[in-house]
Structures are given as C-alpha cells and as structure tokens.
C-alpha cells in the first residue's frame, strides 16, 4: 500500500489506540511512547500491508506486540504471567449466584474500571479488545495471534477474574502493585 494513504487510514484509529495503550501501560508518557512507536512501525511496514485485510486488527497487533517487548510490558509479564492457562481449566464456575454479583450491583463503574486496571495484562488486554475496542473474536485472534477457541476461553477467565477484583490472580499470587 502506498504510504500516502497511511495517514487517511490510520489516523482515525488514533484515539482508540491511545485509549488502549493507556489502559495497558497505565501511564500517559508510556502510552504516548507506545502509540508513537506503533505508528512509526506501522508506517514503516505499510508497504507490506495487504489491502483488504483488517487494518484495525493489524494496528492493534503492532501496538500489543510493541507493548509486550517494551520495558513496561516485560515488567508486567514478569509479575503476572498466565502460564499454562488452559491447564487451569474451568475451575472457576460462574454458575452460582455469588456475593460478587450483589457487590457489583451496588458498585459504580469506577469499581469496574479499578478492577480492569488491576487485571493481569493478558486478561486486561483481551477485555479491552473485546469490551472497549469492540473487536470481533476473529480480530482478537489476529491481534493476539491465537486460535479463536483460545480467545473464547481466555475471555471467559478474564471476565471471571474481573468479577473477583479483591481476590488474587489465577496463579494465586497477589497482583503486583506495579502493574496497576
């Protein structure tokens, strides 16, 4: 694709990408660096971008990969990696009426946002992509480079984790404050 078109196609995604980056990094400066690097990489690779493929998913994927190789991203992964997530199984069942439901019903959106910010990165990013950026399962699978089945199971666990904000993360470790 001609770089002439990059600005027209990529700039409309700017606000959304920034929001995503800020939620991931939790910091304005880091988010700006991340977005800037994302656009630089995307512009550089724009010639290889295939017309007709999903530019939005492509941009989110660059941003997400950039984040995971960044200092902040690596630090977040070290404190909250979800190794063997499939092995965790569906231990948490959401089929019972939990006190958390009542709690959520009483709490405002600020609580949900706080819980989102406190989520481990792999859960936070999938919730953001699905609920905030409104990407389809197929797009999320492209961004995360995982099969759709993994998207569905990870999303399910992320939602469960989001509804238990006061509890520990799935590895049983307390969530590291630095990732918030």
């Amino acid at each position, binding site marked *: 694709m001609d*770089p*002439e078109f*990059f*600005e027209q196609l*990529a*700039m409309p995604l*700017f*606000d*959304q990408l*920034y*929001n995503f980056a*800020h*939620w991931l990094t939790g910091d*304005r400066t880091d*988010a*700006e660096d991340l*977005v*800037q690097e994302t*656009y*630089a990489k995307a*512009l550089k690779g724009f010639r290889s971008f295939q017309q007709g493929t999903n530019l939005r998913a492509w941009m989110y994927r660059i941003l997400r990969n950039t984040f995971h190789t960044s200092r902040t991203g690596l630090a977040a992964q070290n404190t909250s990696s979800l190794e063997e997530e499939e092995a965790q199984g*569906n231990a948490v*069942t*959401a*089929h*019972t*009426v939990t006190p958390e*439901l009542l709690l*959520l*019903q009483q709490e405002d*959106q*600020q*609580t*949900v*946002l706080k819980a*989102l910010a406190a989520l481990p990165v792999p859960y936070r990013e999938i*919730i*953001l992509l*699905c*609920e*905030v950026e409104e990407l*389809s*399962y197929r797009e999320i699978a492209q961004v995360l480079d995982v099969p759709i089945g993994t998207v*569905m*199971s990870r*999303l*399910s666990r992320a*939602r469960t984790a*989001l*509804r238990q904000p006061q509890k520990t993360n799935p590895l049983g470790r307390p969530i590291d404050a630095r990732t918030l």
Partner: protein
Amino acid sequence: MPVPCDQNPITLASYLDGELAPDQIPAMHEHIATCPQCAIEIAELTRLKHGLRAARGHHTPTLEFKKKLQQQVAPPRRPRLNVLRFIPAALALAATLLLAFTWTQHSRRQDAFSEVADLHVNALASTNPLDVISTDRHTVKPWFQGRIPFSFNVPELTGTEFTLLGGRVVYLHQQPGAQLIVAMRQHKISVLIFQASPGQALPFPASTEAGAHNAFTVETWQSNGLRFLVIGDVDATEIERLAQSLKQANS
C-alpha cells in the same frame, strides 16, 4: 439445590458478544427462559459489559500529542513535492528572462552599431562630409580642440595604405564625438571617438574583434576613457590594421 446446568459459560458469553451462530440463537433464548442460573449469569455479564463502557475513551490523548503524531505520520513528500513541481516552471521562467535579457542587450548593441553605421553613411552621403579637410594629423587633431570635451591622438598614416581625409563633429546618444574619415583605395572608413563616461555608457561590448554588421565591418574598443569605433566596407583585416595604429597612438 438448583438443578445443575450443563450450558457452557463460553457459549453464554459468545451469545452476549454477538458471536453466536445465528442458528443457535433461538435455542439459547429458550434455554435462558427456563434456566434461572444462566439468566442470572447473563444479567451479571450484561452488567459487567455496561460497567466496562466507561473504559471506552476513558483515556484521551492530548492535542499536542495528536499534532506531534500527525506530523510524524503525514507524508513528508507533499510540501517538497509542491516545490519540485514548480522547478520546471521556474527554470523555464529563468531561461525566458535570460533569453529576453540577452536578446535585449543584443538588440541594443545591434541598434548602437546601426547608429554608428548611420553616422558613417551619413557622412559619406553628405555634400560636405568633412568639417576639417586635411591629410595632416597635426591639423586635424587641433581642429577638435574646443569642439569636443576630450582629446585624442591621430596616428601617423603617411606611408601606409590609409590616407587621412579629415574629420567632423558628430553626436551619438546626446554625446559629442569626433569622426575621422580615412580612405583606403576607393573605400572610406570612419573612425568614431566618444567619451566612455560611466554614467552614460554607450551600449557597446567592452571590445570586439572586427565583425560584420549590416555588411559593414566594425571594430570597437575602449582605451583611456575613450570609446573607439572603426567602421567601413573593407575587410576585417584592414579594419584591424587601422585599429591597431589607433590603439598604439592612444595607449
């Protein structure tokens, strides 16, 4: 104890996310209507979805950052392209101006040479071509004193192929000058001498080799503040010889 439900929670979420295959939706509706557990789960997930809407656009970039990024992303070639686009036009314009200037200069020179030729022809056509008639340079030179505001030397032509016939006062571009008529066999040659004042520079090139203008041969040069022109219907080599003797006399 509620009856255990075998509904996969992932399918419930897919239904809420709008990712359930259309043919499965009626069955899902039916199930939710009969399974209180799943109905509650749906309500809880919906509530979560609503709560998360606040995260959309929660963080907004600063205007400065947006401008900075736009500059980074904007195709950098565009402004340069505009400049490049004008280069051929600018070159063409410059070439036209240069051509016009050169042509103007050239035509001014042509005009000046034409005027000199007119002076020469005028003198020859006149019934009184000379104001002072003498072959003696010591008679001709002093005659110009008081008639023209400068002095010059007449070379000794005795013994050469040239014969001094005399001289007269002429005007070119409002400047007085001396015209000497020199004979060479049946040909007549004019020597015109003007002051080369910087303010009223005559439109001649600093000097030329003898060259043809309107079938006349003309040579011009500047020496000691005087502009010399030699014009006649003889060969360039003969004009050149006369010019050399004048140059030597006035150097």
